[in-house]
């Protein structure tokens, strides 16, 4: 069984590397570095504004630690056919899940440690916690996460109910209580509590799992959902086969199509516009990025950072629209339509320019809100328009030509 796990893991990792390599292409790395830099700059500026211990400090630390403890779950790597082919091996799956749990611990540990580290200056300044306390809290959350993953394995065996409440809810409630006690009283409380929980989980693991029954359907469904979430995330950056995005009718948005006259040169505009509005993936991407941008612009009062955010996000939306064109071009029927290639590109450019234009208008309102009507706000808005023109009329048409 451990052999099966190792083989699955190898294949899984190979898959992940393949996608990660595609995601971290030059454009993305550049955008990523700028974004990290901007966030870091904002964070350090923000820290400078805190000069005394704050009432909100401790609650924020508690909430952040609690949230980060939710990240990551057991990657079982179960597959659909397992419930047919490996049904007879059910008893041996205990080892398999233990291996899966151990592997799944790594990423959360790194994440929690990183967040703990990044949070430390804030926790020190705003919450008045000592360095030792912060280290103890981070360590406590890490140990607690180990315990949580163990309980998740019990869930696979149907042992996820305790006195009418799911084990997950119990564990989260206990975590909140421990975090509050640890932050306000003594940071060792969390670590001790976490060690006790982990001790119980480990010592009784075999017994609990043995008394339950493997919930194949649930476990496989859960793993599929987990995989789907990961792939959908990858799908934002690159094409992932097997990720079919949801289609919604959105009849109330039909008014948007009224302006598209039904004539041959608009064939693809007709198609692209409807696809964009109805395919959750693309409208979702546009919506998320536009909202994040608007919120950032409303909060940041540094001229240069706002300038970067304005330009970067318009570029990002334009850049991320490219796969949509590619996806549509893979449809065989469109290739035999008696429509010119150049019309396809022209129509897609119309769509992308319109989408970016809407984003630009929204961001302009956010900028005017923050900087009011000033030279600075005008410069930022003009810079956004510049990026829009560049992406809409130069970048996208050139990139699309490469796709054919």
């Amino acid at each position: 069984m451990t052999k099966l796990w190792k083989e699955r893991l190898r294949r899984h990792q190979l898959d992940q590397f393949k996608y990660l390599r595609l995601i971290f292409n030059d454009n993305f790395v550049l955008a990523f570095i700028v974004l990290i830099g901007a966030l870091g700059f904002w964070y350090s500026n923000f820290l400078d504004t805190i000069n005394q211990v704050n009432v909100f400090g401790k609650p924020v630390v508690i909430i952040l630690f609690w949230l980060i403890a939710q990240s990551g779950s057991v990657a079982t790597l179960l597959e659909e056919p397992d419930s047919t082919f490996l049904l007879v091996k059910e008893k041996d799956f205990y080892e398999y899940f233990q291996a899966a749990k151990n592997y799944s611990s790594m990423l959360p540990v790194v994440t929690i440690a990183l967040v703990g580290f990044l949070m430390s200056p804030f926790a020190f300044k705003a919450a008045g916690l000592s360095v030792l306390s912060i280290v103890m809290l981070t360590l406590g959350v890490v140990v607690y996460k180990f315990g949580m993953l163990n309980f998740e394995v019990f869930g696979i065996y149907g042992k996820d109910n305790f006195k009418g409440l799911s084990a997950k809810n119990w564990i989260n409630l206990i975590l909140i209580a421990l975090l509050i006690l640890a932050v306000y009283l003594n940071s060792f409380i969390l670590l001790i509590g976490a060690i006790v929980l982990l001790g119980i989980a480990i010592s009784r693991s075999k017994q609990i799992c043995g008394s339950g029954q493997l919930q194949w359907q649930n476990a496989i469904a859960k793993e599929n959902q987990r995989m789907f979430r990961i792939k959908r995330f990858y799908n934002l950056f690159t094409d992932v086969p097997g990720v079919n995005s949801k289609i919604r009718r959105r009849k109330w948005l039909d008014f948007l199509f009224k302006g598209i006259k039904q004539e041959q040169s608009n064939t693809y505009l007709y198609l692209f516009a409807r696809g964009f509005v109805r395919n959750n993936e693309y409208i979702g991407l546009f919506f998320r990025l536009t909202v994040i941008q608007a919120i950032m612009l409303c909060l940041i009062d540094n001229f240069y950072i706002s300038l970067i955010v304005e330009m970067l996000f318009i570029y990002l939306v334009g850049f991320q629209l490219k796969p949509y064109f590619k996806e549509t071009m893979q449809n065989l029927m469109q290739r035999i339509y008696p429509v010119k290639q150049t019309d396809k590109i022209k129509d897609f450019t119309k769509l992308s320019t319109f989408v970016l234009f809407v984003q630009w208008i929204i961001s302009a309102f956010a900028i005017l809100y923050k900087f009011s009507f000033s030279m600075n706000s005008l410069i930022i808005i003009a810079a956004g328009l510049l990026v829009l023109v560049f992406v809409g009329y130069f970048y996208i048409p050139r990139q699309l030509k490469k796709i054919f």
Partner: protein
Amino acid sequence: MTLELKELTGGYGQVSVLKKETFTVEDGQVVGLIGLNGAGKSTTIKHIIGLLTPRGGQILIDGLSLQDNVEEYRKKIAYVPEMPILYSELTLKEHIDLTIMAYDLDHDKTWAKAHELLKTFRLDNKLDWFPQNFSKGMKQKVMIVCAFMTDARLFIIDEPFTGLDPLAVNDLLNIVEEKKQKGCSVLMSTHVLATVQDHADKFILLNHGQVRADGTLDELKEKFDMQNGNLDDIYIKMSNEDQ
């Protein structure tokens, strides 16, 4: 409308599936393209509709090749693929609108035709459905409607008889007959020999990417020396020639 294939050679990548394939489809003819799996039927069709580029030889529709005028060439053809290909984001009604736009057809006249076809295939009450709600057979019917409402002169249908219910097969054959009366040509590839035997004027037997024989059923009987045989028998005899 005539379709001419002259010594067509081609395939995917470096492998030549088709080797000097030659045949013609005349005005108002219904032609059955017949062969084993892998004989080159779909490859031939993909070359004709221009999804693959020939490595040698020529394909002419009314003397016009794809290179001469891409748009004109494509307007002459309507194609129904073996596996239905629809846009998941468009409703049935919008598929018809899109086809009208793509082929630059008259909106009202074509919609009248479309309504008739939709009614025939019992789809007229599903205009606002998305493809994901259609069964495979229904999707195929949508493809048929979109193809047959155009003003194309050559209709290419890849394996039309599997997946359709018997009633729809019958309706499709009626529509084919109607188009034939108007002087259009129809080329269909199929394995359902009994059906095609009764409804096609001419047959092209493909084997290993070459035309083994072509002609009417009587001509084929003569060529294979099987006076009492039907298309099935001839087909099996051809397959056995390899051994």
